[in-house]
């Protein structure tokens, strides 16, 4: 019974994660030109700011970039080609996401690898605890019962 509860809890959590991913993970059909401009600008670093995207910065250069993105989108260019253009002028640095080739791959691979490593560590630790608990339990119980019996007899 208790084991079932554990599995149900895990399934429930996974389902919540899936729902959250669907709800917030993908920009739900960025339809208007403003939304599409913002979606592109959010992926670009404002050149003169500290850790701010082109979408959020009030700096003049960020404004100029937003206008450029807007015009290019209106002219039918794809978000990827606009990003590629800015990367070709400013370098990979302008892109808020690390590149998917070269050293940037480390940044993409490290988090899932760390999560997997953590899960592996947790599972081995739990297995170790359970093995130890099972091995020592009968011994302790026997000694304990022995002691209780001895003390009862002493009375």
């Amino acid at each position, binding site marked *: 019974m208790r084991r079932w509860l554990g599995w149900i809890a895990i399934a429930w959590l996974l389902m919540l994660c899936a729902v959250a991913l669907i709800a917030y993970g993908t920009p739900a059909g960025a339809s208007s030109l403003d939304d599409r401009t913002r979606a592109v600008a959010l992926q670009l670093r404002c050149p003169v700011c500290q850790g701010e995207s082109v979408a959020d910065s009030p700096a*003049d250069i960020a404004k100029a970039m937003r206008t*450029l993105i807007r015009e290019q989108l209106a002219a039918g260019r794809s978000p990827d080609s606009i990003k590629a253009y800015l990367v070709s002028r400013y370098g990979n640095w302008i892109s808020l996401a690390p590149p998917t080739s070269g050293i940037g791959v480390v940044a993409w691979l490290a988090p899932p690898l760390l999560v997997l490593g953590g899960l592996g560590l947790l599972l081995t630790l739990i297995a170790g605890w359970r093995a130890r608990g099972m091995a020592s339990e009968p011994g302790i119980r026997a000694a304990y019962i022995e002691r209780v019996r001895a003390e009862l007899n002493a009375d």
Partner: protein
Amino acid sequence: MKRALWSLIIAVPLVALLAAGFGRDPSAIVSPLLNKQAPEFTLRSLDNKPVSLASLRGRPVVLNFWASWCLSCKDEHAYLLDASRAYAADGVTIVGVLYQDTPADARAFLNQYGSGGWPQLRDPGQRTAIDYGVVKVPETYFIDRRGVIRYKTVGPVTPDVLAQQIPRLLRTAA
């Protein structure tokens, strides 16, 4: 013993990574345009004449993005004036591009500090600045006779940089 070894295996690369990361200046950007063809432009100058980079092919170009509101642009301007006098006979052209500035303010600046006579171009919407990957003014691009960017400075150019880079541009063949 084993535990100490594992700690070392984990700690050493981590410390090395952090040292490499924090030891770097995050605002120092290597321009991807270095040694590439300079982006073309045709812009109107303050006297409303069209100036294109293509029309300057065959001459070394010092392309200077600046603004009248930019303090270090004042120091730099004096060095550019010196350079323009020193290298005019060699065919070196200085070209200024205004960055988020008004023509009136730019004219006032040039009247006060000396115009040097080189073209000062208006760049509506900073399209040319973005095309060159300008982050903040002043930035200066050294373009050779073939239109290739050979060097770039972020921040005011110094007399040393001008004395090094302009002769370098002059040495490259057309």
